[in-house]
Structure formats: structure tokens, C-alpha cells
């Protein structure tokens, strides 16, 4: 698989690495990272920045019995623990399937998204949104609406703009809009300055999106639909 060509960029990755990004948006960024070794490295470096900033903080006084209380807690912990049967220095390497199925098990759903779906897409119920477009809603805290979106080939999402930001990562297939063409692993960033109408590629599109601040439909019919529909 070719590597992604649309990335979150420094500022969004800093929001993720520092922990300021809400859960839904973080899930989209982390899913992109599963496709993108380059952004994994960048986040590692940004976490190193977090470590250095932590080190440079002015120390605050901690009450003297805080460490004692913690050690007492650790003692209780240890006494409850079964006798050491912990693996020696070299834990066994995680078992991987002898040959990773690449074409059979499409689409590829990496962690952490796989965990949010309880393992995968099998048996999941899709909710109808408009002809050729269905979603699965995911639970990711209250700040964002996070969902898996499936579009049939050639289907267009309604033209819209954004209350705050909308992050979308492609898992399979692809889509195009005013900003470019998005393939698996690519991340698309919508904000209030962007008005777009994503159209699924002929093979269809499966993507994960997190919307903060809602969407506003801007097409002639969409303006009316805004009041009734939950896009």
C-alpha cells in the first residue's frame, strides 16, 4: 500500500500529542497514524517535547507523606499479586498469523479503531443517512460526533461547511472534493473556511469522521434540510 499523501500537519499533531484534542478527533488522528509511519515519528518527537516541557516546569511542593502513602499502597498491591510468574527478560513475541491476509480481510481496520468497533465490521448495523450513504455511530465522549461512513461509488455527500472542524480519514476506496483526492490513510480537514461536496470514487468509500461544532448544509436543498436532518 502506498503511504498517505494528506497529513494532519504540525498543529493538529501537537494537539494530539499534548492531549488537548478531544477523543473523537484523536481517534481519527491515531487511525491516520496507523497508516503513516512519518506521522508516528512526528508524534514521538512531540511527546519528547512534552517530556522536556514537563522537566522544565517549576516544581510544586508535594506533602511529605505522599510518597509513604504511595509505597504503602504498592505494598498492599504486591501482597495481593500472585507469586511471580511473570515472564523472564524476553517475553514471547506476540503471535502473528503466519501470513497476514491482505486481500481477503478487507477493509483493514487498524487499532485503535478496531477496539472501538469491538473487533471489526462483521455484524455491525449501518444506519441509513441518504441513498447510497450509511453510518455507524461510535461512542467517543461528548465533544465530537464520530462515525464510520460508507458511501457507494459516485455518491455525493451534501455540500456543507463546518461549525468548527471535521476530520476524516479514508479506510478503503476514496473520495474527492474541492481540496483534492483522498485515498486510504489520507486525512481531510474541514473548517469554517471550507465549503465542500465530497464525492465517492467509483469503487466506493469507507471512512471515519469526527465532527466538532456540527456541519451546516449549504446547497440549495441542504439549506432547507438543515432544519430536519442529522448530518
Amino acid at each position, binding site marked *: 500500500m502506498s503511504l498517505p499523501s494528506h497529513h494532519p500537519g504540525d498543529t493538529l499533531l*501537537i494537539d494530539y500529542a499534548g492531549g488537548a484534542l478531544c*477523543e473523537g478527533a484523536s481517534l481519527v488522528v491515531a*487511525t491516520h497514524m496507523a497508516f503513516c509511519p512519518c506521522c508516528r515519528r512526528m508524534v514521538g518527537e512531540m511527546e519528547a517535547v512534552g*517530556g522536556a*516541557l514537563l522537566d522544565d516546569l517549576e516544581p510544586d511542593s508535594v506533602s511529605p507523606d505522599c510518597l509513604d502513602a504511595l*509505597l504503602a499502597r504498592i505494598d498492599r498491591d504486591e501482597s495481593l499479586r500472585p507469586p511471580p510468574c511473570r515472564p523472564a527478560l524476553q517475553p514471547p513475541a506476540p503471535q502473528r498469523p503466519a501470513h497476514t491476509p491482505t486481500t481477503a480481510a478487507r477493509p483493514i*481496520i*487498524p487499532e485503535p479503531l478496531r477496539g472501538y468497533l469491538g473487533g471489526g465490521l462483521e455484524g455491525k448495523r449501518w444506519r441509513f443517512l441518504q441513498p447510497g450513504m450509511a453510518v455507524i455511530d461510535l461512542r467517543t465522549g461528548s465533544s465530537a460526533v464520530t462515525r464510520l461512513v460508507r458511501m457507494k461509488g459516485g455518491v455525493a455527500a451534501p455540500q456543507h461547511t463546518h461549525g468548527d472542524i471535521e476530520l476524516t480519514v479514508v479506510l478503503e476506496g476514496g473520495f474527492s472534493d474541492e481540496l483534492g483526492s483522498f485515498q486510504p*490513510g489520507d486525512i481531510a480537514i474541514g473548517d469554517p473556511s471550507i465549503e465542500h461536496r465530497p464525492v465517492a470514487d467509483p469503487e466506493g468509500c469507507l471512512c471515519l469522521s469526527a465532527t466538532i461544532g456540527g456541519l451546516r448544509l449549504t446547497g440549495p436543498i441542504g439549506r432547507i434540510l438543515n432544519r430536519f436532518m442529522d448530518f
Partner: protein
Amino acid sequence: MADTAPSLEDLLVAVGREQDRLAFGALFGHFAPRLKTYLRRLGCESGAAEELVQEVMLLVWRRAETYDPAQASASTWVFTIARNKRVDSLRREQRPEIDPSDPALVPEADEPADRRVEARQSNDRLRAALKDLPPEQAELLRMAYFEDKPHSVISAEHGIPLGTVKSRLRLAMDRLRKALRDVA
């Protein structure tokens, strides 16, 4: 200057390998007061901050076995634990992260041999580069890491245009990345 004191990385490895309580005490002495400042900047009261410091340090004790000094400095590793814990406790959200052992992870094309320079050395260069940042860049960077606000909110609340926030963070990150990557 005496350079015989064990590094934070040595201490953390000793906790992981031997459940060394003395080493843990020394780690606590370094990190607990800084973690308390971190949590107070994020809005914790003093008492609640100390409780959370205890929780973070308990995780440090429990997970020390998994610490790999070739991957991250001790401060980086502790920072990620503290960040995840505060997202969980203060914001009641999960922290989605990749699983490095996931077979679905798209692998790196080639791992340059010099990538794995001692995390500790690059950390020293990083801290020096942080001190050299222009104040307006350093200030924004601290807000981004310590205020639980994405950069768009920082822009709105502090009346700094979004483009300025972005370019300052990018400039800061460019410099810090150079410090981390350059093996001078």
C-alpha cells in the same frame, strides 16, 4: 561536577527490573513536584493534584517493566503516562492510541540506522533548543501542552490570529525537530 548520580533512565530501568524502591523514591522526588505543577496548570486543586500525582506514579511503578530507554527518555515516558491519566480522570475520555504490535500497522519503509540515537542525548539537545526558542513561540508551545485547549481555542481565547498560532507552533516545532534529529 560529579557525574556519578544515576540518570532518570537508569532509575526507571532499575524499578522495572528489580522493583527497586530506592530508585522509585528518587524518581518520585524528581517527577512528583513537576507532575503536580502540570496538573495544577490543567486546573486541579492542590489536594486533587496530589491524588492524581499518586495515581500517575503508581502507573509508573506498575509499567516500569515495559520502559525501553532506546525509545524514549524517562521524562517523555512519564509525560505520556501523565497525559493519558489526566485525559481519563479530568476529561473522562479515553485516549485513542495506535498499538505498535498491530499487524495492520503500515510499516516504515526503511529504518535509518542512526535514528535510534540515545533518547537521552537527543533529549539534552532538545532542552537546549527549548531554551533558545523566541519567547512568543515558547509561550504558545506551553499553552498547547498545558492548557487542554486545541490551537483553534487558544487562538480564539487569546485573541491571536489562527494563522499566527499555527505559524508560531510550526516554527517552534521545526527548530525542536532539528535539535532532535541532528546528530551534530
